[in-house]
């Protein structure tokens, strides 16, 4: 078979295939995926799915009818084992192979494993796939005391879900604040207070040194200070690692992910990568970056799909993220990084505010807590390169949307 082969059927893989097809790519398209599930939604796995608010069936994002109508061949349950760039061939188990003209690698990322004594005890879980989520949900139902290792997005969302289910929850975070890589200290403090108010025990600046078990099942988590916390279930959320081994073994340049250009193309012509497994130069962040988000996966894959079909539509979106914990809607646009100035709009005490971050006078990121309207305006401001002054941003009577319109016109 020739045409387009896509490895991975999550957001990036499916979107690349769809974008190529919709842009007029007429060759055969085959998506091969190691999971047995039809493409499904991942964000609800740590939230509504654990809470029983969305069924497995309604997690499904694309079904057989979709693939038939787009004439995309979907091969589930087959893990690609090698890529031969010269022969333009993907090897599958059992001496099977797929030949391709163009290739998209959308292999995603995997959970970083914790390497301490006792880490292989039963009851120590990770959350990435729907299979992980089903397992976690079943275990959560029987658990009373849960320890979350890592105060990042997944850890905090699972902590919130477990607290809502009435469990005793402890979050152990190695750094001095929650969500350190994603938000500023102000937002970290707000989230800390929110979790504490919900009855979650949060331990900062604490490393996990080992897990102790009873009969091979985890029973407690031992901390760096020698103390231990009882646990009948542990969820480890300490970051992700790009699944780029297939690409690097094939000889593609990988540096914390497969290195790609603004069309998602690797250094080898016709070989693309998108989503969690790819590393691109983001002009809004002014740096090379590997992002783990639905927006990044979809937008980058769209650019790749267009390029495959011979159309043009480079990937140049402002990164955005969101997280729902309790009744807190956290939305993030841009990456604050080393900001030199900030302005707070709204009231942190009331739990409704946005923080505007500046670098050298330019608005680079905005975190919003329960301020979706401001976040929407901020997205367009940053994308359009329009910066309200910090004084304007902090002034609730200043209409941010008036600048949005001006920015759109300037950009048109």
């Amino acid at each position, binding site marked *: 078979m020739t045409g387009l082969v896509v490895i991975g059927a999550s957001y990036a893989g499916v979107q690349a295939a769809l974008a190529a097809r919709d842009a007029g790519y007429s060759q055969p398209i085959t998506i091969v995926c190691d999971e047995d599930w039809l493409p499904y939604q991942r964000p609800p796995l740590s939230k509504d799915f654990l809470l029983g608010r969305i069924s497995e069936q309604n997690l499904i994002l694309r079904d057989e*009818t979709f693939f038939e109508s787009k004439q995309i061949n979907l091969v589930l349950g087959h893990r690609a084992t090698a890529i031969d760039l010269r022969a333009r061939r993907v090897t599958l188990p059992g001496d099977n192979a797929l030949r391709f003209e163009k290739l998209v690698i959308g292999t995603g990322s995997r959970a970083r494993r914790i390497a301490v004594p006792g880490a292989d005890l039963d009851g120590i879980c990770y959350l990435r796939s729907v299979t992980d989520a089903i397992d976690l949900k079943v275990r959560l139902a029987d658990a009373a005391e849960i320890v979350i290792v890592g105060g990042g997005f997944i850890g905090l969302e699972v902590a919130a879900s477990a607290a809502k289910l009435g469990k005793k929850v402890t979050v152990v975070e190695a750094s001095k604040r929650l969500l350190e890589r994603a938000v500023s200290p102000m937002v970290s403090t707000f989230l800390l207070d929110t979790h504490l108010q919900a009855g979650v025990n949060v331990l900062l600046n604490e490393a996990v040194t080992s897990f102790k078990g009873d009969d091979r099942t985890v029973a407690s988590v031992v901390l760096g200070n020698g103390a231990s916390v009882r646990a009948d279930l542990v969820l480890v959320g300490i970051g992700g690692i790009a699944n780029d081994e297939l690409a690097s073994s094939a000889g593609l340049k990988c540096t914390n992910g497969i290195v790609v250009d603004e069309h998602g193309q690797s250094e080898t012509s016709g070989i693309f990568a998108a989503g969690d497994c790819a590393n691109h130069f983001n002009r809004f962040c002014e740096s090379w970056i590997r992002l783990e988000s*639905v927006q990044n996966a979809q937008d980058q894959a769209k650019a790749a799909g267009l390029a495959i079909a011979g159309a043009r539509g480079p990937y140049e979106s402002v990164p955005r993220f969101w997280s729902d914990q309790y009744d807190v809607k956290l*939305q993030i646009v841009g990456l604050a990084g080393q900001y030199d100035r900030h302005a707070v709009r709204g009231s942190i005490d009331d739990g409704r505010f946005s923080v505007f971050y500046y670098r050298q006078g330019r608005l680079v990121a905005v975190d919003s807590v329960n301020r979706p*309207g401001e976040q929407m305006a901020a997205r*367009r401001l940053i994308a359009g390169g329009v910066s309200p002054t910090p004084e304007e941003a902090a002034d609730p009577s200043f209409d941010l949307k008036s600048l949005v319109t001006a920015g759109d016109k300037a950009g048109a």
Partner: protein
Amino acid sequence: MAQVRFVQHDGSEKCVEVQRDVSVMLAAVRSGIRGIDGECGGCLDCATCHVYVDEGQASSVPPPSEEELELLSAVSGERKPNSRLSCQLKVLAPLKELVVRVPARQS
């Protein structure tokens, strides 16, 4: 089962069968309707499923929440009185077909 008719900016149309408990956004994504991304899966975070409900049918769907209105306040597609986020729309009985238009651009 009910139906949703998606009308693109260029006038092209596609009808999709939808179960009454499935949102218009999810039905669109499952059918690969162009211009509806639905990144967040319907938890009112992304606003990438903006549509215009047919003027004659606006009263056949439940009104938007405060949160939905806030998100709609700065969408990149033109904001109209019948603007909605399709993740919040379901085709409620007795309506058999809902007609929505997809804006020229999504955020």
